């Protein structure tokens, strides 16, 4: 029995998961685009994400959110790659959040309406990775618990992290609007 499972299990599990995962390629690529900020690296990242997902298909629990599982793997691969590229063996926290208080000048939201796509892309890219990720995951429609799973943090911290990220993004966008 054990031998049969070993023979039949991985391939079938990998193929079934892979077929479903193909539906999320564009979403994974868009996320990779904003993680790497480089088209070729984004492609490599998605491909590595797929290779790892297929190799560990049996560790995926059917019935749970495949898309969140794929995003978690992709972010982990990205962080792993970036860590290996870092020159110094011991470093400080690279991704300290931009903390910006709630602006008193909320009337400036009118300026946001004049922002063009390249400016919002640049502003988003200027955020540290954890803030960039939480904004992108929110846009993808993930729930707070799914975002927490992808980002490896407690669900309770997602709301505050997202609020800080959006506040930082608004402030950055105001600069473009002026």
């Amino acid at each position, binding site marked *: 029995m054990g031998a049969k499972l070993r023979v039949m299990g991985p391939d079938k599990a990998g193929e079934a998961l892979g077929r479903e995962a193909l539906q999320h390629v564009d979403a994974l690529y868009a996320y990779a685009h904003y993680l790497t900020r480089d088209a070729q690296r984004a492609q490599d990242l998605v491909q590595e994400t797929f290779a790892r997902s297929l190799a560990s298909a049996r560790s995926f629990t059917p019935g749970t959110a495949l898309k969140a599982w794929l995003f978690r793997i992709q972010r982990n691969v990205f962080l792993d790659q970036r860590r290996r590229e870092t020159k110094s063996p011991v470093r400080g926290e690279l991704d300290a959040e931009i903390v910006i208080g709630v602006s008193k000048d*909320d009337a400036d939201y009118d300026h*946001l*309406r004049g922002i063009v796509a390249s400016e919002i892309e640049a502003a988003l890219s200027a955020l540290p990775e954890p803030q960039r990720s939480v904004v992108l995951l929110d846009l993808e429609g993930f729930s707070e618990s799914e975002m927490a799973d992808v980002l490896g943090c407690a669900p309770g911290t997602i709301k505050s992290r997202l609020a800080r990220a959006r506040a930082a993004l608004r402030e950055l966008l105001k600069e473009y609007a002026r």
Partner: protein
Amino acid sequence: MSTRQDEAERALTELLAERLPRPRAPEALHARLSELVVKQRPSQRWPGVLAGLGAFAAAAAVLLMISRTPAPSENPLLREVVNDHLRVLYAQHPVEIESGGIHQVKPWFSGRLDFAPRVTVEDDPEWPLVGGSISYVLDRKAATFVYTRRLHTISLFVFPDGELPWPQTSPHMLGDVQAQAMTARGYNVLLFKRQDLGYALVSDLSMRELSLLGEKLAAP
């Protein structure tokens, strides 16, 4: 929240939803990924042969099982730990925390992993510890310890072992602990479990010498 803040939030939401570029994956990437998925498909040849052969079905089934049993070098876990070891070898800075001894390296992992790696080889002059880092074994984080012996580098990966595609080979005993001893791409690999953690030792060191370190790590 004030109305102005509500409106500012709404404006940002609209801006992100409507104007943030969401690049689509190039067709070439779609094609490569589809190809990767198709490669996962089990061969359809053998079931057809079995149906047609009738009386030989039982024998053919045995052959089928053997033919589909992954060779040790194809095991995903084995492939992954060898790849991770190669990354250690090729990295300009293979460790993130340089060692001043295991008592400096182990605490470095707390807060970076959701498990505590149990490593019993401490300040052993025969197995100098270079340092540690975080890596990934398939879908999960792993603690990486890098040891040296003469001019050889040895990577030790420690990771939660649940539901990993553990290879099935003849047992290789490390003291009382049952391990799997394999070779892939010229590297010797020892895989074993202790409690709920998996351990992978990878090196170009001989299997005999690697097993000496394995026995120390597997000791209670």
